[in-house]
């Protein structure tokens, strides 16, 4: 088995004049989970569909499980599984019938039973697909991706549109799937999801990779792991804020200032002192640990939510 499940070099995808994917390099080691993170419109799905063999690349090289799509499309398809965004399975078929149908396409794989139990959908085996809830449909999509017992599993926004409870339920299932040397490529625009599920993360924006690393390393790369957010009236000059011990960065959104710092117990008393010196009142003060959202904000100047709406 190849040590690298996926190797991508200088991948470019153009639609007419539009450059959707702009020179992506990527490697995924066998048995790891890679998170492809970014807002909608970051062309995560385009990238993944090229890896899945559903779209041709404009240029660049793609090797999946050691083969190229031109060499052995059927061979690769037999060894990968996928959930696509918003697949509507046949509403009139039952869960079990849908799984049996998809199982029949694979030369080898696991039983329908096993796939059902992996996604905890045994009770719904005889239910028509049209009667399933959103979370159950996503679990069915996951089971359909699993019936071929794939070495490499692509999950394209598996929890989008789900309520928090269903989302966490799905995370538990995906966590369990990661054993057995299976490689997983997950796209999401939920930073928390990537942090929970993935060993490595690649942050994509406008078809380019803007950062990569483990979730912890990415947060570390901000320079500070803690954030102090406050509103001061009148505002404190930014030179004064740089005197806060462990200071590594400052951002402002409206009145709210957010400082990246190393240690809260040193930074907060210092901030209070500086505010006093400037006869400034802290109207609001809160602290939290830095997250991948902050990484995205630092890299792109936008929060993920803004990127969504943009």
């Amino acid at each position, binding site marked *: 088995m190849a040590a690298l499940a996926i190797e991508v070099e200088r991948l470019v995808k153009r639609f007419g004049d539009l450059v959707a994917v702009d020179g992506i390099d990527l490697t995924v080691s066998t048995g790891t989970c890679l998170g492809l993170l970014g807002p909608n419109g970051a062309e995560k799905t385009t990238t993944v569909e090229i890896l899945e063999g*559903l779209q041709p690349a404009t240029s660049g090289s793609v090797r999946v499980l050691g083969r190229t799509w031109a060499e052995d499309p059927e061979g690769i*398809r037999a060894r990968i599984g996928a959930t696509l965004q*918003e697949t509507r399975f046949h509403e*009139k*078929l039952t869960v079990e019938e849908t799984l049996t*149908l998809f199982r029949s*396409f694979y030369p080898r794989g696991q039983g329908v039973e096993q796939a059902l139990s992996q996604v905890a959908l045994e009770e719904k085996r005889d239910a028509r697909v049209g009667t399933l809830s959103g979370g159950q449909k996503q679990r069915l999509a996951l089971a359909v991706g699993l019936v*071929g017992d794939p070495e490499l599993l692509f999950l394209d926004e598996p929890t989008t549109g789900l309520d928090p409870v269903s989302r966490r339920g799905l995370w538990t299932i995906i966590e369990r799937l990661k054993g057995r040397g299976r490689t997983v490529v997950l796209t999401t625009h939920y930073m928390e999801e990537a942090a929970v599920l993935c060993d490595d993360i690649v942050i994509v924006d406008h078809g380019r990779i803007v950062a990569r690393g483990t979730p912890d390393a990415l947060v570390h790369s901000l320079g500070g792991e803690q954030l102090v957010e406050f509103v001061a009236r009148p505002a404190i000059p930014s030179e004064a804020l740089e005197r806060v011990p462990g200071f590594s960065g400052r951002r402002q959104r409206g009145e709210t200032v957010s400082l990246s710092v190393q240690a809260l117990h040193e930074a907060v008393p210092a901030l209070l002192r500086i505010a006093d010196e400037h006869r400034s009142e802290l109207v609001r003060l809160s602290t939290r640990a830095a997250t991948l959202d902050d990484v995205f904000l630092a890299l792109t100047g936008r929060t993920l939510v803004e990127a969504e709406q943009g």
Partner: protein
Amino acid sequence: MKGASGWLKPFWQLLLMRLRSFVREPSATFWVFGFPLLMSIVLGLAFQNQAGARLSVAVAEGPERPAVLGALRASEGLSTTEMTLDEAHRALLSGKVALAVVPAATPRLLLDPTQPEARSAKLLVVDALQRAAGRTDPRPLEEERVTLPGSRYIDFLVPGLLGFGLMSSSIWGVGWAIVQMRIGKLLRRLAATPMRKLDFLLAFAAGRLLLALLEVLFFLGFARLIFDVRVAGNPLTFLLWGLLGALSFGGLSALVASRAQSSETASGLMNLVTLSMTVVSGVFFSASHFPGWAQPVLRALPLTALIDGLRAISIDGAGVAALVGPALVLLLWGVGSFALALRLFRWT
């Protein structure tokens, strides 16, 4: 476990998917079986009644009204209504009655001689009144009633409706299903599996054939039971001809559905195909009513070929040799559109 592994074959699973989706969709069952049945009952009854209809005659006021009424009521072909003279005039003008009688010692008949119904009514009225007055027929006549099988409108209509039904169920059943699978990204999902495209296409074709087989048998059954419509030619030829038509339209349907990305586009295209052919291909009346210059075009349409063939077999008792022309038309459409569909087809 040979049976079990055979059962798992992708072709069978895909065919099962097609059949289940049909059986579990009540509206599909209605459009394929219920709708043509209703159509032929309504149209069949409408035209059957017309043949045996009586002619309406108004009887105005006058001295010998009861005698006139009695004489006319004895006639099989007339139905009488009592009216004032004014009403009778109005009923004549509006065409509600074919003729009006004003009773008197010498009854007066009011009629418009340019109306064919008025002439028939006059013959019947004169006959009835003269008979009542004691006329005897010097020459005895014998009447034998014949309704030739195959000559009634219903005999003409049933093959037309069957052709229409096969076209609709092929275009909508296959095309609509494909477009819905594309919109729901199910085609894309299938393309991401090692499924062979050929299995997919064969399953659709086999599903279409099975359903078309049921459609033809159902049509033959109810037409025979309700209207006593019989197939003059070989019923097997009739059946195979229906299946050939269904396959030909299956190809056309795959072409129509090869790229459509939305329900609106798909239904627009499908309506364009089905409605235009329904109008010109002789479902309700013979396509030969269209002017001569249009005939080559009409003969080249698949629905015309399908219906002409069905009528030739069921009414004229035509054999295979007489069907070569329309068979070529169906084959060319089926193979040509299917080949084009394969080139154009989008899984995504």
